[in-house]
């Protein structure tokens, strides 16, 4: 891998310089190795070595809320449920709970809302006046198996419709057959198609077979200029897991060390509990550092997580275990 802007081993760049990518380097990709059992051991102990309680837990959960890409990706999505989703994104936690925690003036919202292309305009209407970005899944999500030209066109349409973030899927075939350069070239084109919108590449790790493949795909996407790398579509049999996340996080760390570019991370699918969210935040804090603990560099792709966090926050405030119906639905 070429070392760009190298300065004493670690490159110093401005806080949020966008990843422009670097030239493709097959030798670097071929040299990557991930030892699964060792990664699993680390992942299994992260939530045991670290624990946040009381005020710390509340604050961390609120931070998690701000990192959620509040998502609906269903065949039966209509303007009305997207509108509710957008309302929830703007007011994710009940006001009096925020007030009790002294957080009501902090402008707590979710990180983004995430919808299919056809719902972008509805989301845009519903989010008018807020700063919440719209993320759209694209490139024949979730399988991606249509011609490249069509996929690129989709991206352009979504950007034109107002999406500020494009969650694209990679061609799993390119990973499974080792066509890394092909993957790089497609990603480059997609990144170009995204223009000013951020490109979040979904690796669909549940279909990549090995963690070594996950690491390789992560690096290829980053080399091609991904702004975020994301675990899953939420539609695979296995979605975000801690070992997969750890592998991707470490790839991000290595890429940063070599290029100075900070790439974001988004685990998606299967994260429905507040406690899980804390484990992910701890993993990020431990392996990437505090700079990644915000929604510019970290997102949860989740639909039900927020509900559990709300209940935990109410429990913190009142000391009583909460019920779902006490919190406004999306």
């Amino acid at each position: 891998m070429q070392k760009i802007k190298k300065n004493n081993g670690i490159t110093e760049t401005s806080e949020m310089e966008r990843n422009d990518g670097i030239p493709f380097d097959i030798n670097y990709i071929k040299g990557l190795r991930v030892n699964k059992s060792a990664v699993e051991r680390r992942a299994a102990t992260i939530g045991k070595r670290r624990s946040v309680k009381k005020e710390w837990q509340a604050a961390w959960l609120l931070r998690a809320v701000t990192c959620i890409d509040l998502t609906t990706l269903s065949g039966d999505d209509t303007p009305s449920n997207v509108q509710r989703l957008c309302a929830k994104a703007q007011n994710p936690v009940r006001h009096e709970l925020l007030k009790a925690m002294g957080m009501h003036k902090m402008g707590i919202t979710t990180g983004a809302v995430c919808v299919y292309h056809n719902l972008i305009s509805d989301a845009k209407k519903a989010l008018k006046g807020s700063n919440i970005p719209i993320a759209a899944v694209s490139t024949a999500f979730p399988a991606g198996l249509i011609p490249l030209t069509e996929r690129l066109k989709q991206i352009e349409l979504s950007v034109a419709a107002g999406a500020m973030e494009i969650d694209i899927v990679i061609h799993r075939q390119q990973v499974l057959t080792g066509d890394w350069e092909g993957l790089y070239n497609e990603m480059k084109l997609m990144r170009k198609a995204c223009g000013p919108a951020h490109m979040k590449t979904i690796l669909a790790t549940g279909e990549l077979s090995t963690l070594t493949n996950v690491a390789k795909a992560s690096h290829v996407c980053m080399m091609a200029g991904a702004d975020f790398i994301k675990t899953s579509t939420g539609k695979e049999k296995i979605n975000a897991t801690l070992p997969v996340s750890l592998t991707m996080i470490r790839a991000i760390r290595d890429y940063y060390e070599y290029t100075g570019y900070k790439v974001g991370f988004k685990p998606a699918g299967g994260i429905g509990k507040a406690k899980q969210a804390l484990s992910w935040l701890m993993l990020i804090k431990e392996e990437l550092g505090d700079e990644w603990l915000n929604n510019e560099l970290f997102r949860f792709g989740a639909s039900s997580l927020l509900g559990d966090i709300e209940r935990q926050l109410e429990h913190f405030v009142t000391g009583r275990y909460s019920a779902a119906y006490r919190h406004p639905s999306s």
Partner: protein
Amino acid sequence: MKIKKIFETMEYGPAPESPKAALNWLEKHNNKFGYYCNGKWEQPSTKKYFNSINPSNKNVLAEISHAGEKDVNKAVKAAKKALPKWVKLGSHGRARYLYALARQIQKHSRLFAVLESMDNGKSIRETRDIDIPLVARHFYHHAGWAQLMDTELKDYKEVGVVGQIIPWNFPLLMLAWKIAPALAMGNTLVLKPAEFTSLTALLFAEICDQVGLPAGVVNIVTGFGDTGAAIVNHPDIDKIAFTGSTEVGRIIRKATAGSGKKLSLELGGKSPFIVFEDADLDSVVEGIVNAIWFNQGQVCCAGSRLLVQEGVAEKLYRKIKARMEHFRIGDSLDKCIDMGAIVDESQLKTISNLVQKGIDEGGEIYQPKCPCPTEGYFYPPTLFTNISPSATIAQQEIFGPVLVAMTFRTHAEAIKLANNTRYGLAASIWTDNINMALEVAPKVKAGVVWVNCTNVFDAAAGFGGCRESGFGREGGREGLHEYTIPRINDSFGKKPFQLPVAKKVVELTNNTIPSIDRTAKMYIGGKQCRPDGGYSNRIYSPTGQYIGEASAGNRKDIRNAVEAAHANGSWGAKPGHARAQVLYYIAENMESRKHELALRIAASLNVEIDVATEEVELSIERIYYYAALADKYDGRVHNTVAGNITIAMPESIGVMAVICPDEAPLLGFVSAVIPAITMGNNVVVVPSETSPLLATDFYQILETSDVPAGTINIVTGNQAELAEVLAKHDDVDGIWYFGGNKVSKMIEHTSAENMKRTWVSNGKYRNWYNHEQGQGEEFLRRASDIKNIWVPYGE
């Protein structure tokens, strides 16, 4: 506002585990404990008590009895009294008790975990997730062995009353490793916990009470070194099991020499952590965290010497340092820490002094900026780079959170550096190349090898070391033999077994002209050698007939023989089948010289020719026995943790000294030497002193049997003198002796220096002419050590 601030900084906060239940338990005992003897709590005869301190905050937790010699006597007496009934209770009865102990430990697991964490200073995460679950697992596993003893180990019996002395680094786990197998195999015991950490042992005593364990089966005496010494020296103790420092282990080895006490020692280490350039370096970093910063580095098998392939060294160091910056050190009951407190002020001083020495000797030190509490005994994680093997901290065990790093160029160099230590406990090998891992694992001197993992334990696998890390295994099938003795040992005689003497003097020849003078030489490195000293001994039969002359070997001959044995790399590398072929060939050649050998025996012992012929035939049959086993006495794959293949592999000990029985000049030689070489050892043999010529005849057989030079080296002469030279030789790894008390004691005592494996008969004599006594798997077990290689899998 607090939440807002945390929201902005995303800092960690305190996450304390409550000490309440543990404090209540201490209070229930008025924070003062007697010792546990014969099912009762006794106050110490010394009337002395000492404090147990929480090293995280220096608070006194409780007063502990300082048991004296009288108290130890009482406990041993109780254990001795309880023994017959405990043995008679049988497999199933003992299994029920062990099962109950396992269950009770699980039911009270958090109390044990919190108490252990407070008493020792190790993090609650470790006691809760590692120590206590392993304790329960150990009792479950051995409840199984108790149940199976009658069927699986029916040729073995209990050792008797066992004395056990354990360290402070894993207080309850080491107790479990000692007590579970001892009880399962029908022994009763007296155990002394370390003075810094007696509390969980006392809670365990309470649990023994609760499950109704018969009085006297388990006795827990608390105290200091003098208490331990009283156990070690007690005449009614049949076995000592010790885990602790090599220094104390050596004292115990010397103190028990010649006493006939069985001994297992699990001692110090300076275990290598070998990283090849193809390893997943991020995973390596976490491996290092688990290797040297687990339990503050106070782990006998801690991977304390990092050996990293030169090309990736700087990259790895950078990653380690980055990880160190994320360390959290604090009160042991905080659930958000990586490391707790060092057990005691004295240990903290030892660590600081050694680190200073490392700096003075030119090492580059790195300690992270993470805050380290000052209230208790804390020490930050420490990395030394630019360390040469000659540095003090590269050789000496620090027993603290200090890693020393060195680089290597090739895997051959990695193995060389890994083995450049007096210790040999554990090793960790990191590579994604299975060929590399499985080549290096057998070549590293260690009892436990972890591939791409470290500090993984399970009751089903043996743990223990070689060299000065001690001997014996704890856990698994191999560990049971530390707490059993073969039943056949009861039939050994108090005097050597003698063949019936012939009615008249046996004549070798009746030639009318004098026979040609024969010179029996020694046999070293595949060559016949004259003795260095130039002296020979005249050999006579029991009736005074002159038989011939044998070389009088001396220390230089021994030196040469040991060197020749080490120079032979081919024998140990042969697979069992190839060794068997050589053994069969020896038997074949003996058969063709049967008459000649029989005549020699007949003359040497003055026995009838048919009696002598029988000895030759038995010898041939014995060789067949070991040749048959050569490719069958193999290892196991232990059923341990998920996703892991744990290979228990018998390995040769190395260079062994075999002091043959003085009786049975041919059969004794064969019975002692053949099993040793069957397992791939190279041997230096001192044959029968009174009838050495059978051995010198034997080398002619060796010369014609494709035995590689240096496999068997024969030095004739005075057995006691030569045995002492061999026992004192630091490049001899094991020594066997089949004779009287005096030499047995000398060998055990002298061997303490390099902790060579000893097997001496202490004046108990086998009848070599009896298959049950003269051969068996015990010979092969004594000629080998089990190495457990842990190989996790998954892609």
